[in-house]
């Protein structure tokens, strides 16, 4: 899975938000708030086609968390992105 090219992430103060640009912004008019972990995963998914397992491993390498917490975080974010049809 990968982030579709018509989406971008923006840092506003200490928050991160994802929005649509280009043609997609005609129908996708909301902004999705992400925390630092979400933004980290977003950046990975915007560059490469990755699986949930890849994301969990990346999270474990970056943050001091156990595998279960990392897997839960990844699953939550992937679910949000899937629900909003942001992934391809």
């Amino acid at each position, binding site marked *: 899975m990968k982030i579709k090219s018509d989406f*971008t992430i*923006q840092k*506003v*103060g200490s*928050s991160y*938000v994802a*929005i*649509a*640009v*280009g*043609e997609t*912004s*005609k129908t996708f*008019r*909301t*902004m999705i*708030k992400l925390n630092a972990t979400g933004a980290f995963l977003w950046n990975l998914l915007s560059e490469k086609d990755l699986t949930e397992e890849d994301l969990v491993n990346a999270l474990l390498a970056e943050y001091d968390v156990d595998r279960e917490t990392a897997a839960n975080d990844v699953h939550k974010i992937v679910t949000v992105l899937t629900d909003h049809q942001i992934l391809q």
Partner: protein
Amino acid sequence: MNENIEKILAEDGFYVSTTVGASMSPMLRNRKDRVVIRPVNGRLKKYDLPLYRRPDGKYVLHRIIGVRDGYYIIRGDNTYRKEKVPDDWIIGYVAEFYRNEKHFVTTQKKYRAYARVWNWIYPLRVCGVKCRLFLSKVKHAVLKPFRRKKQ
């Protein structure tokens, strides 16, 4: 733009979106550049970029070119008509914007200088548009006798 911007601004304190249309071109390009809107706290200044909602419900993001008692004089950077906008139409202002990956804060001196210059050269821009229109009419009139008639 989203239909609940006021609600988002009240809850989150900011709203991020692309801009729609060419009225703020060349600074903000249609569905490409992104703006960060913040709620208004007090009166805005000349050259600020307010987001306001007209009584017909349409959101507009243009530039303040005059500050008056109870209202603003507003015009888009790429438009040629002024609009009188009462204070209570204003719901926020552009605090930051992104042009490609370049980040601008609207309090930056460099940005304020750009806004001032763009406003100063307005008469020249009007002249340019009128000249283009005139030349297009001349070209049309000159070429008319040489055009093939449709059969």
